[in-house]
């Protein structure tokens, strides 16, 4: 899983690089994408799944998925830009968003929503 739920908040699983301080998402242990460090330099950790909308789109066409649906790029408070589904009636770049976990097609899916909406 790429995220964990607890205390009413969602956290993203990331990898922290001790050599250069980078926060890596999606998490992996092949090597740090910035400095190349591997093995013991890389540690699993979590960061809050929250940030600001970097960009978004309403997708009208998709080869397999039911449309329309919203996608978002979130500039997380922790640094990485992450892409995921969005559920926001009036998205705008710069707006604060947090992640929620929704059940979509039988799977737990991370969806960003406007901050303050539950």
């Amino acid at each position, binding site marked *: 899983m*790429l*995220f964990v739920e607890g205390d009413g908040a969602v956290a993203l699983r990331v990898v922290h690089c001790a050599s250069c301080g*980078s*926060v890596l998402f*999606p998490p*992996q242990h*092949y090597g740090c*994408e*910035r400095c190349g460090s591997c093995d013991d330099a890389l540690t699993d950790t979590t960061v809050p799944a929250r940030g600001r909308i*970097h*960009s*978004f*789109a*309403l*997708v*009208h*066409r*998709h*080869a*397999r*998925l039911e449309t329309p649906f919203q*996608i978002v*790029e979130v*500039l997380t408070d922790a*640094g*990485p*830009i*992450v*892409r*995921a*589904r969005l559920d926001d009636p009036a998205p*705008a*770049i710069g707006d604060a968003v947090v992640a929620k976990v929704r059940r979509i097609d039988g799977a737990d899916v*991370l969806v960003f929503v406007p901050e303050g909406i539950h």
Partner: protein
Amino acid sequence: MGKKNLLAEQPVYVIGIGLHRYQHASDTTFVTLGLTAVREALVDAGIEWPSVEAAYVGNVRIGMAAGPAMLRYLGSTGVAVAQVENASATGSTAFRQAVHDVAGGVVDICLAVGVDKPDAMNWGPQKANVPTLADGLVEPFSHFAMLTERYMAEHGATPEQIAKVAVKNHRNGSMNPYAQRQKVRTLEEVLAPPQISGALTRLQCTPVGEGAAAVIVASAEAVERLGFDRNRAIRVTASASRLQEFTPGINHDVALTAKTTYEAYDQAGIGPEDLDIVEMHDAFTIEELLYVEAMGLCAPGEAVRRLEAGEYDIGGKHAVSASGGLIAMGHPTGPTGVGQVCEIVRQLRGEAGPRQHPGARVGLAHMVGVGAVCLVHVLQRD
């Protein structure tokens, strides 16, 4: 950089160009597509197949050993052959390999050919087992829809203004017999449904079909030996290739194109003001605006105004996507980067007919591909 500027020391020329029209998927085999382009390039260069010492075949979807399965029908010569894949920049990479084989003195005459059909794709990144939150969610058109949204927010541009890129490129494509789309389109037609993603409509997105493009490159010695018309030999003065760097918190697209393009400018000893012809990866309208800014043709945020003033039209300050670009000429993938070189050579020779940009002397070819990778070449009339 500390790198040897090979193309400044060893002149390499394009002497032959050939294409098979880009088109919707058909029953035509890739062999017929590819041979059509190669034979046209051989005729254009005025040489026979046995003169070609090495060949790079670019394709992303046909599969292993497609090159030999096609080239064998040109006759038995023992030509050195290799297949090249680099996502959307595949054809550009095949061209780079051919140019460097000649510049390095390995061979005197080399072929780069791109050929592709819209068969099923085999994706490497999916096999890395690094899932994301957006797997299968963000197709290329949605990546660029998000860049469109951000550009509109940052610079106050409107969907109507951005769509004017497609009006220009469809108009250019209407004059190109090799283009997949050859119809003039009004702004209303470009903005009409179907909507694809965000502000992008169908006519603002590249069609991915089939086709082929071939280019023959030669050393100065070969040009001399062949008695080739020097006015039709177009020199390659730069070849730059980069993988995106780790840039947390920003979109990499603009930074990657800027860095690769400026590396090419350095090699060729030119600047953006020198460019007459620019063939770029305009798979989606927003890309043309982002990349003319990244290439230094104008300041960030100014591209719409320059576009509306006609600066990027044929006959304007720089002809951008005179071929119709990916939006109108099309993006069969393997051929695309090679086809850009064909257009630039035709323009610099002054042989582009109704879409000729007057006085064209310097051209730049730019492609990006999944990775993200970026390749930039500069071609110049001697």
